[in-house]
C-alpha cells in the first residue's frame, strides 16, 4: 500500500487554491455551523466558570431561607409562591435560638433608594438592612476601611452606614468618607465603614450599596417585605442536617400540615449550580440541533460542489488512471479534498466563533472563555462533515472508467 497522503493533500490544496471564491461560498453552511457551536461553547464555558466561581464564593456550608426560590419558572408558580407568608425577623430569631446545628444566622432586607452627600446624590443604591453576621456569610463583604456593625449598633438602632466601593467612588472621589454624613431618604447616617470592591455580576455592579442596621431599616421602611435569611452550618457535611432542622422549625412556625409542601425555599450554592447546569445543557442541546442543521446543509453543498468538481475534472481523473492511479488513489484524493475543504471552513468558523464570543463578552455582560481546543473541535467537526459528504462524490470519481474519462470533453 502506498497511498501518498501528503501528495494527495497537496493536490487537494492546489485544487482548492485554484477556486478560492467558490470554495468560500461552498463553505458558508459549515462555517455557520461551526461558528455557532464555538461561539456558544465559549460563552457557556464563560458563564459556567463565572457562575461556579460566584456561587462557590457563597460558601458550601451556607444556605438561604427565602419566600421565593431563586428561580421561578412560570407565572402560575409565581402566584403560588406569592401566597406564602413573608419571612420575618421573628423567623430569623427562632432559627437562631432553636437550631442547634446553625452556627450563624443572618437576615437581610433591601430596596433601591437615593443617597446624598451634601449636594451630590446617587439614585438606585441598594439599601440593605443587615444583622451583625450578614457580612461574614454567603457573599462575604470585606472592608477597605472602618469597621463592621456590632450588636450594640443593631440593638441601639444606630444611624450608622457602611458603604460599597461604588458609592464611595461616586460621592467622595478618593476623599476618606469615614465619619462623614450620608443621607438616605433624608435621614443622616454616619459612615463607619467602606467595603472592598467586588466587581460586577452579569454587568450588575455589586458595589453599589449602603448597609444599615436591620433594626434601623425596619424603623424606616417597616417589615412588609419578606426577609432574606442566610444560615451557616458548622461545616459542609452537616449542611443537610442543619437544613432539616431549619425546615422543621419553619414548618412548625408556619403551622404547615403534615404532607403539605414547605411554605418557604431552602437553597444551597450546589442547588444553584445544579440548576445552572441543567439550564446550560438545554442551551447546548438547542445549539447542537441548530448547528447540525447548518452542518448538514453545508455537507450537502460540499457534496454537490464535489460532484461538480469530479465532473469538471473527469479528464484529469482519466489521465491519472491512465498513468496508474488506482481507485483508492482517486478516492483518497477526492476525500482529502473534501476534508481539506470542509476543514478549512471549520478553521474559519472556529476563528469566527471565537471572534463573535469575544465581541459579545466585550459589548454585553456575558463572559466568554476561549478554549484553544475548540479550534481543533471546529476543524474536526467540519472535517467529519467533509469526510461523510465527500464519500459519494469521491467514489463516483474512483469508479470512473479510464477510457470513458479520457474521452470526456
Amino acid at each position, binding site marked *: *500500500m*502506498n*497511498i*501518498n497522503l501528503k*501528495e494527495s493533500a497537496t493536490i487537494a490544496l*492546489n*485544487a482548492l487554491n*485554484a477556486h478560492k471564491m467558490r470554495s468560500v461560498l461552498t463553505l458558508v453552511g459549515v462555517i455557520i455551523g461551526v461558528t455557532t457551536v464555538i461561539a456558544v461553547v465559549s460563552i457557556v464555558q464563560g458563564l459556567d466558570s463565572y457562575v461556579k466561581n460566584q456561587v462557590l464564593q457563597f460558601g458550601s456550608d451556607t444556605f438561604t431561607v427565602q419566600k421565593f426560590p431563586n428561580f421561578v419558572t412560570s407565572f402560575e408558580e409565581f402566584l403560588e409562591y406569592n401566597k406564602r407568608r413573608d419571612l420575618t425577623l421573628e423567623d430569623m430569631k427562632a432559627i437562631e435560638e432553636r437550631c442547634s446545628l446553625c452556627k450563624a444566622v443572618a437576615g437581610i432586607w433591601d430596596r433601591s433608594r437615593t443617597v446624598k452627600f451634601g449636594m451630590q446624590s446617587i439614585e438606585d443604591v441598594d439599601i440593605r438592612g443587615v444583622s451583625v453576621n450578614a457580612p461574614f456569610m454567603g457573599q462575604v463583604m470585606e472592608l477597605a476601611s472602618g469597621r463592621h456593625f456590632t450588636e450594640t449598633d443593631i440593638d441601639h438602632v444606630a444611624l450608622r452606614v457602611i458603604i460599597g466601593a461604588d458609592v464611595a467612588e461616586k460621592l467622595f472621589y478618593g476623599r476618606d468618607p469615614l465619619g462623614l454624613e450620608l443621607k438616605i431618604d433624608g435621614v443622616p447616617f454616619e459612615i463607619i465603614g467602606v467595603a472592598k470592591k467586588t466587581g460586577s455580576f452579569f454587568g450588575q455592579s455589586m458595589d453599589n450599596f449602603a448597609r444599615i442596621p436591620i433594626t434601623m431599616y425596619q424603623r424606616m421602611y417597616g417589615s412588609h417585605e419578606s426577609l432574606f435569611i442566610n444560615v451557616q452550618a458548622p461545616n459542609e457535611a452537616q449542611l443537610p442536617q442543619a437544613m432539616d432542622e431549619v425546615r422543621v422549625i419553619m414548618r412548625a412556625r408556619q403551622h404547615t400540615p403534615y404532607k403539605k409542601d414547605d411554605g418557604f425555599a431552602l437553597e444551597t450554592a450546589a442547588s444553584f449550580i445544579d440548576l445552572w447546569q441543567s439550564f446550560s445543557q438545554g442551551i447546548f442541546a438547542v445549539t447542537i440541533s441548530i448547528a447540525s442543521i447548518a452542518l448538514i446543509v453545508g455537507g450537502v453543498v460540499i457534496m454537490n460542489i464535489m460532484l461538480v468538481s469530479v465532473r469538471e475534472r473527469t*479528464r*484529469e481523473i*482519466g*489521465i*491519472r*488512471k*491512465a*498513468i*496508474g*492511479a*488506482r*481507485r483508492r*488513489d482517486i478516492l483518497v484524493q477526492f476525500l482529502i479534498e473534501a476534508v481539506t475543504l470542509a476543514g478549512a471552513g471549520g478553521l474559519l468558523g472556529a476563528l469566527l466563533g471565537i471572534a463573535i464570543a469575544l465581541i459579545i463578552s466585550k459589548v454585553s455582560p456575558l463572559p466568554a472563555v476561549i478554549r484553544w481546543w475548540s479550534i481543533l473541535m471546529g476543524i474536526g467537526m467540519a472535517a467529519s462533515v467533509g469526510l461523510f459528504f465527500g464519500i459519494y462524490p469521491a467514489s463516483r470519481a474512483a469508479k470512473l472508467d*479510464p*477510457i470513458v474519462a*479520457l474521452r470526456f470533453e
Partner: protein
Amino acid sequence: MGTSSGAATSVEETRKDMGNNGDRPLIVTEDLWKTYEMGSEQIHALHGLTFKIERNEYVAIMGPSGSGKSTLMNVIGCLDTPTKGKYYINNRLVSELSDDELAFIRNKEIGFVFQTFNLLARATALHNVELPLIYNGTPAGPRLEQAKAALAKVDLADRMTHKPNELSGGQRQRVAIARALVNNPSIILADEPTGNLDTATGVDIMNLFERLWEQGNTIVLVTHEHDIAAHANRIIHIRDGRIEKDEKVR
C-alpha cells in the same frame, strides 16, 4: 495501511511473473474483438485480431480514420477491455487481472503517449512527469531524480517548472513522452503522437522515438503517414478492424 494485503500480494505476483518471461512475446492477442452497440447496429471496431509483438520491436500501426487503431491501442494499453478474445501482456491474461493489477500494469509496464498530450494543465512539467512515480509510491528523493532524468532524456531539463500552457506543442509532447518513460515501461504506446504537431516538430518527435527504440525500448506507434511509418521496423495495416497486412520493413 494494511487493509488490503490480498491486492498487494497479487500485484507482487504480477511483478514477479513479468520478471521471468523474457523469452515470451511481450504482447500476444488471440481473436480480439471490440464491438460497439449503436442502437440496433453493431460496430466491430476490432474484428478478430491475432498478432504478437516481441521485445524491442518498433511497430507502426497504419490505417484510415475509423479503422480501429485507437481502439486497439487502448486495449493494448489496458485502458479499454476487449468484448471478446484474449490479450496477454508479459504472459499475463489481462481479462483475469483485478482493477488494482490493471492500474499497476498501466503504471509500470506501459507508457502511453496521446495525440492530445493529456497533461495535467495546472501542474508543472516536472510534476506531470513525477505523477506515475507518485502512484507507485516512489519516495520523494529518487522520484525527483528519476523525473528530472526523464525530462533530460527528452531535452527539457531547462523547462521543468513550466506549466503546459507555457510550452509549445512539441515541448508538451516531449513532457508526455518523459512521463511515459519515467517508470522504464516494457512498452511505449503512442497514438498519433505527431497528429497535433507541425511537420518539423513531428520529425523531432519521431527522431526521439527512434532514439528510444535504439536504447532498447519497445514501441508501438499509430500513424497514417507513410513517412512516419517508415521509421518503424514493422508495419501493421488495419482496415475495418482487421489486419490487412503485417510487414517487416528495414
